[in-house]
Structures are given as C-alpha cells and as structure tokens.
C-alpha cells in the first residue's frame, strides 16, 4: 500500500560509481540506485520477494534485510528501499550472523501460513520462495501441527479439509485468464502494484488485514485487462496462475528461446518456452528500454496459432521456373513484403529485385489500422519491422499503389503479407495479376488466392533481426518448433531465386549492410540480447 509513487531508480551504464564498504571491503557500485540493485551490480544477490525493478517499492516482505552502520550503531534496513550513499558501510550474511538470522526469521514467518505443496504447485522450479529458501532459509521447521495454519483467503472460499484443517480458496476465478490460489499468496502486493501503477487500473486489491489478508477484485467485478497475464509473471509464488498454462508442463522441462514478438512494431522481447516440439508459454523477456518486464495478452497468446493452419512446403523449382519465365517474357513483377519480414528477408528481397532488373518493383505495408503506443509494451503499429523497411529502402506504405496499378503486373510475389486477409475488397484488384506467388507461414486468405503458394518459416522459427519503433536493432532466435523441417525461411528462398543463396542469417545480415549503411559496420553475432540502438534513434 505504501508509497505508490516510489519507482525504484535503476542503475544504467552511465551511473556514477561510488565507493561503499560491503562486509568491510571497499567496492565501487552505481551511486544512483538502491542498495539491492547496487549489490547486484557487484554480484551480490539479495533475496527478495516484494521488490520488482519496474514496480514501485512497497518494502513489505522484509526479506532483503542487510545491516547498515549508522549513528546509532548497526541497524537492519531493507536493501530495496535504502539509497546508496558514498562511504556507507553494509553488512551481508557473509559477515553478519545477525543479517543471516534475520533473513532466516523472515523466511520462517513467510512459510508459517504457506501450504508448501510444491509437488503440485505450478510455480515449483521458478518460485521465489523456493529460491529464497535455498539462499536464506534451510531451517528445520520448528512448528507443531497443532499450531495450525491460517491460510490467507477470502472467508467465503474457506473450507475444512479431510484433516480438519481450515483451508483457503484453491482456484479462485479472478477473470477470463487468471486463476488465483489464495493459500499460496504471500501478500507481496506485486500484482496490485502492477495493476495500479502499470496497467492503471484498480481491478485487484488486497482486502482484509493481518493474516487474513487476501487478494481480490471488487465484488461482482473481474480481473480483465489487456495486461492481466502479467500478474502471473510478477507473482513470486504459485498464487496467480494463467489459465492457458496451468498444469500444462513442469517448468523445468521447458527450454527457453529468447526472441522478439513480431506482432507489433515495439518488438516486445519475449521468451518462447518450448518442449516436445511445441511452444507452451510465452514470457516477457526483460528489456528496460523496450517492454521492461511486460507483455500484452495479445502478444503473449498469439503463439497458440503459430502451429495451426500452416502452409505446406513446395518445391523451389516450380517457383523459380515461373519467375524466370515471366522475366524472360519481359513482364513486370511486383514484390510485396509484409511487416513480419525480417531485415534478412528484406535483404534477400532487394537482392532479388536487383537480379530482376527494372521489370521488378518493391511494395510493402499493411492495410491494418495503426494505433498509438500504450506506454506499456505495445506501439500500436501492427507492421512490426516498419523501421527496418525504411532502413532497407523497402517501401512500407504503398500497398494502395500496388492495388491501383495491379493491371501493370504479370507476376505478384508476396512475402509474409496476408493482403487478402487484411482487406479483401482492396486486395481483390490483385486478382487481375495473372501469376500470384505467395510465400507465407500460414494457409491464409492470400495463400488461398495464390496461384502458387509455398510455406515458409514463421518468425518464431527463424534467426534474424528487426528494427523496432524505437530504432533498436533486435535479434530473433529460432525456436525449434517448425512443424516440417523442409520448410525454409523466406530469405533462403528469395536469395536462391536471386541466384545467391544466403547460408545463414548472419550471412544474410552481412548482405543487408550493403543496402543499409547503418547496418554495414555491425555483425550479426555481436548484437546483444537486448538489441542495439541504431544511429538517429532516441533511447
């Protein structure tokens, strides 16, 4: 509840360095942040529950205690709310038994009313309590069963179990996407703070007080917000669970692919959590400059359709013959790209255009509505790589031109552009074009209207790069979930059509440098996981 205005200050590369003493040893730490972040910057992890770098500090879990030397001797303070001051003296469990015991005590209190049913808990394996227990606890329980537990929860959901123990609500329906396990909640307040200060909505509240505090919505209301699944990310324990992922997979069986969401031009950084050749879950991947730790439901749940309705692979030579046939006749060729084309796809496309000479023309864009940024994790522009198009000199807003002049062309090649799906009435003019080659991941409207439709890899299955709306060059990584190994990335097919097949994304990226000066000095492998701000963009 307290101080919702207190957003933590996070260290940056430009933070001034100050000297502080940790366990009597001098260390240089970022000077403009809190102690928890400063210690982290020098490799000292502090167990914490309520602190989240992108949420206002509430300082209520009391897990992050350290000792600070002050005018009245050494005092226990919470690291998450103590600002770094030059020369301050800090003691961690490495030297202070008092800190160790205090953290242990907090841990013990935290578990007093906790069910500890990790074997059947979805959070097990990535649970903050479990981690803190290994870090700060590991104490033998001192409780007797007689003491009982007072599980947190709405009194209306309480029941007596077979052992005569009073229990809290185990699956409370908060809204269309989120279920709450009240017993497991540790009242850290993160979900409430997220909804209040990030989502800007008062849908979640902490009700009651003392050990009968519980999370709830207002009577008769639901948790229903475009970002509501983020509460399942910020929840440190297994209390907030996402209906779509609940009990689908133990988290330690998942592999994680870091990539970028290509349904919006902010390019939210994400993890694709996959196993058994399919994606189980999409999680936000922290990038302070882009989406912080947030992800919209739209971007998060889009994966459910990635494997569906896929377009089968088709032999390359059919396409090649068609294209070279039209070229030989001297017919005009339209090459049209959609917003999910990566920089590599665009490099291949430009190369293809060069090889076709003056008879080919480039088009690109979307008929979808362009909205405005929501300030959280969406820019509102459905054309993900728009900035990349501009950079690569590929038109990003001339589809109307294409439909108007459709009669001029003998062949249309679309790449990742569902132009019929976006606006069927405008796209119908394209049927005037005799040959319509469609490269698409999905068997969508455009594929249905194609005379030759060939499946390519979806953006979640390719290596590559994109430039987001903030002019940050970001890297996509291939998640091994492509339904058919024969399906190839679009850039491979396009570059082969152009007569010089790219061997890898890195190779393609090198070629992209020829078309975009801003990329020429860079190499694919040195792009950081959080991307690279290109010249001319604002941070």
């Amino acid at each position, binding site marked *: 509840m307290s101080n919702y205005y207190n957003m933590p200050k996070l260290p940056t590369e430009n933070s001034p360095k100050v000297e502080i003493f940790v366990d009597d040893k001098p260390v240089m730490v970022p000077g403009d942040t809190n102690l928890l972040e400063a210690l982290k910057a020098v490799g000292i992890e502090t167990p914490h529950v309520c602190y989240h770098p992108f949420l206002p*500090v509430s300082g209520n879990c009391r897990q992050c205690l350290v000792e600070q030397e002050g005018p009245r001797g050494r005092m226990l303070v919470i690291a998450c709310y103590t600002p770094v001051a030059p020369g301050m003296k800090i003691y961690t469990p490495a030297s202070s038994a008092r800190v160790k015991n205090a953290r242990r005590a907090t841990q013990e209190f935290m578990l007093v009313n906790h069910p500890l049913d990790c074997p059947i808990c979805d959070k097990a394996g990535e649970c903050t309590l479990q981690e803190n227990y290994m870090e700060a606890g590991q104490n033998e329980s001192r409780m007797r069963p007689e003491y009982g537990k007072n599980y947190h929860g709405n009194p209306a959901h309480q029941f007596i179990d077979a052992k005569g123990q009073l229990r809290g609500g185990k699956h409370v329906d908060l809204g269309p996407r989120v279920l709450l396990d009240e017993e497991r909640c540790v009242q850290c307040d993160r979900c409430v703070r997220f909804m209040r200060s990030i989502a800007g909505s008062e849908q979640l509240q902490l009700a009651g007080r003392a050990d009968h505090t519980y999370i709830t919505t207002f009577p008769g209301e639901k948790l229903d917000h475009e970002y509501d699944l983020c509460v399942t990310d910020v929840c440190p324990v297994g209390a907030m669970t996402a209906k779509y992922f609940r009990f689908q997979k133990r988290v330690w069986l998942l592999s994680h692919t870091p990539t970028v969401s290509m349904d919006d031009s902010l390019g939210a950084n994400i993890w694709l959590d996959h196993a058994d050749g399919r994606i189980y879950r999409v999680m936000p991947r922290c990038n302070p400059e882009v989406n912080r730790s947030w992800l919209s439901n739209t971007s998060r749940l889009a994966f459910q359709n990635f494997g569906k309705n896929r377009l089968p692979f088709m032999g390359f030579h059919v396409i090649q013959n068609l294209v070279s046939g039209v070229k030989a006749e001297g017919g005009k060729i339209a090459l049209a790209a959609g917003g999910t084309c990566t920089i590599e796809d665009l490099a291949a496309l430009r190369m293809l255009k060069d090889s076709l000479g003056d008879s080919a023309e480039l088009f690109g864009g979307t008929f979808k509505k362009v909205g405005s940024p929501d300030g959280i994790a969406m820019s509102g522009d459905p054309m993900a790589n728009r900035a990349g198009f501009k950079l690569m000199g590929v038109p990003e807003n001339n589809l109307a031109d294409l439909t108007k002049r459709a009669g001029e062309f003998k062949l249309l090649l679309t790449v990742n552009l569902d132009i019929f799906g976006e606006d069927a009435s405008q796209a119908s003019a394209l049927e005037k074009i005799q040959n319509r080659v469609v490269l698409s991941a999905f068997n969508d409207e455009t594929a249905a209207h194609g005379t030759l439709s060939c499946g390519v890899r979806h953006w979640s299955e390719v290596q590559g790069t994109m430039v987001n709306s903030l002019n940050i060059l970001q890297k996509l990584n291939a998640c091994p979930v492509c339904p058919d190994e024969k399906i190839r990335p679009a850039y491979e097919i396009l570059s082969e059509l152009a007569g010089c097949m790219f061997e890898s994304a890195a190779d393609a990226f090198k070629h992209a440098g020829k078309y975009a000066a801003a990329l020429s000095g860079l190499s694919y492998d040195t792009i950081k996981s959080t991307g690279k701000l290109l010249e001319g963009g604002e941070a």
Partner: protein
Amino acid sequence: MAECVKVCTANFGKGAQDIEVYKKLGGYANISEKLFNMSQFELIDYVQRSNLRGRGGAGFPTGMKWSFVPRNSGKPVYIVVNADEGEGGTFKDHFLMLEDPHRLIEGLIIAGWALGSRAAYIYCRGEFLPCIESINKALNQAYAAGYLGENIMGTKFCFDIFVHRGAGAYICGEETALINSLEGQKGQPRLKPPFPAVSGAWKSPTCVNNVETIMALPWILSHEPEEYARMGTPRAGGTKVFCISGDVKNPGVYEAPLGTPMMTMINDYAGGVVGGKLKAVLPGGSSCAPLTAEEAAVATMDYECLASMKTMFGSGAMIVINDTHNMVDLLNCLGNFYSHESCGQCTPCREGTGLLHRMLNLIVAGKGHDGDVELMQSLCGGFGGVTICPLSISLGGPVSSYTAKFRADFDEYIAKNPDHAKPRVQETYRPGIFW
C-alpha cells in the same frame, strides 16, 4: 495527595462544552493580539521552551517536530489531530474531547498559527460518536463566534477544522497509516522516509499530534513556558493525563505532573489495588512491558525512569493487575488484539502475530508443550526493528517480557497438558500421497 495544576482537565464537569461557559472559564483568551503578534518562529521557540513532549506514545518533543515542517514549500501545511485512541487501557482522549472540545479547538488555532497552516483534520476513532458530536457542536459555535473560518479576529489568518471519522482500526493511530486512511486509502503505515513533516497528507507537509498534546497549548500560552516545564522532569515538561484501569478502586482519568511516583498514582489517585495483592503494572498502555510489584514500588511516571526499567511511558495508561490473574490470560488477550489489528503488510508481523496468538490460545486451552515458550521468545526476536511500524513489537515486547518476568504462570498452564513433554514430530509428506 498534593493538589496539582490542571492543564488539560481543568474544565472537567463544568459544562465547558458550551462556548460561553468555556469563555467564562478563561477560554479563547489566547486567540488575541498576543498570539497574532508572535511570529511563527517565536511561537515554536516558545513551545520548545515549555519542554512539551508528544502525548501520543512516542514522546517526541513537540516544538522540535514543528520545526521540521518546511516553510515555503509551495504546498499547504496540514495539521492532523490523532484522536484514534486505540491502545489498550487508554481512554484519556475520549474524555478530553467529550468534556472540553473548545480547548482542542483553541489549541489547534495556536498550532495552526505556529505552522502557518490553513486547515486541520481531527481524525477521530469511529466508535467515539459522542466525542464527534461534542466536537462538531463546539466547531459550529467557534465558527459562529469568529474563532474559525476566514480572517480570524480581523487578521489575515484563515483556518478551518474538519472532523474525519475513522473506520475502527488500531493501526490507523500510526501517523502514516492515519494519513493514508485520511486520504481514502487502506490504512497501512507508509515506508519512511519521507516523514509526514515533509510529505504527508496529499504529499504536503503534515504535522500529526495527539489530542492531549494540542490541548496543553492553551495553558502553556497563557502562562510562561518555563512554568509548564517546571512541573515535569528535566527532559519532559508539564503534567500528563493518566488513565488508570484494572484492579483499582477508582479507575479513571487523572492529571498529575510527570515524574509522579507510580504507587502515588495507584494508591492516592486511584484508591489503591482491589481484589488481591499487586502483581504487575503496565505503565504505558497494553503494548509495554509489565513491571512487577517490586519494580512498581520504585518507578516514577516519566519517560526516563520507565525507559531505564526497559518498559515505556507510552500513552501513560496504567493497567493495574492483581495476583488473582494469570499473566498468560492477559497475554492471550493481547495476542488476540494485535494479531487482529496488524495491517498485514510486513511478513513478520502479518504471519507472526497470528502464530503467537494461536500458540497462546493452545497454552490457555491446556494444550501447551514444553518448548513453546522458548519458541515464542525466539519468534519475537524476529520482529526486532525489521518491520515498517512498531506494531509487531507491541506484541513481541510483551511476549518477551511476560515470559521472562512471569515464567511460572506459563509453566503452570503448560503443565495442565498431560502430553506436555511429548516431542515435536515432523509431519512429512512423502511421494506416494500425491502420485
């Protein structure tokens, strides 16, 4: 017993709820040229010289607290009266507001002038309906008489007072929780810093003072500050309104100078212990450590003496306990109260107070075990100085001190359990139950 000067309770039983009576008794004499000719700094210095310390529990010097309030911050300064009296055994503010509401208003006008404030809030405990009525009536009279509102007494000074009714939570007596509640948020203490003096209600400088603190101001202003200071001890001036309750003949509210011996308070003011021999005294409300009869014999009622005896002066509410009581029952009551009143933010307080209460319940029910007392003491060690507000220690302190001073009472209860020596069995879930 020596007749002492009555600073706050002088008008008790004289019908001073009515402004005419109050004025006849010398009321509102301070709201005059003399006050308005004083600068804010002179007035604050004046109060500082009186050695007045806050009567809400923490005993912070009032003048010094006022001097922390920044001037010219560009934001309004608020004064908030803490009338949420919730501490066990404390009932002085209730009677003060009921009997002499105009003195509170007069005190607030003085505080308002000292702090350059435009408005004050009286945050009154919701259950105190008669007090609220009494204050509202007095406010109407004071507005009509021109002591409140625009341009008071023809000066440029404008001052309003509002009464806010709390919803009945002990924690809303903590000043930052009170401010949250006043703002309409959940009544939970805030992280400090910033302190309310710098950023309190609506992020503006706010001074929170107890009812009694404010009500001492009119007397201090109409006398010399040194005269007030002389009545108390060197480090805390003046008189104090004590609440005496428990096993005494005449429980009630008594005003006496700070530093009065504890036994004088019990025997001379409250008519002595009844129902048995003196066993223990809680000197400063329910959250302080008890004094045994021997300690009580030498204690004096002031901040320093009680602090030196490892208890506290608190709100000056003495609870007298005779030897027919078992301290475990008392502690169980406290456990019930504080575990219910914890605001539920900090992990140790939220989970710990409830656990202690459940353990105490078991002991009282004859189901205690050997080692329970040691466990409780060790759990309370986990409260020390690690929570946002001191409420956790309000239970942790008593648990430590009761068990240390009255161990026999606990052992007596635990012995009632035939299985009290049974060792703890670790209940372990093994794979096989779930799959």
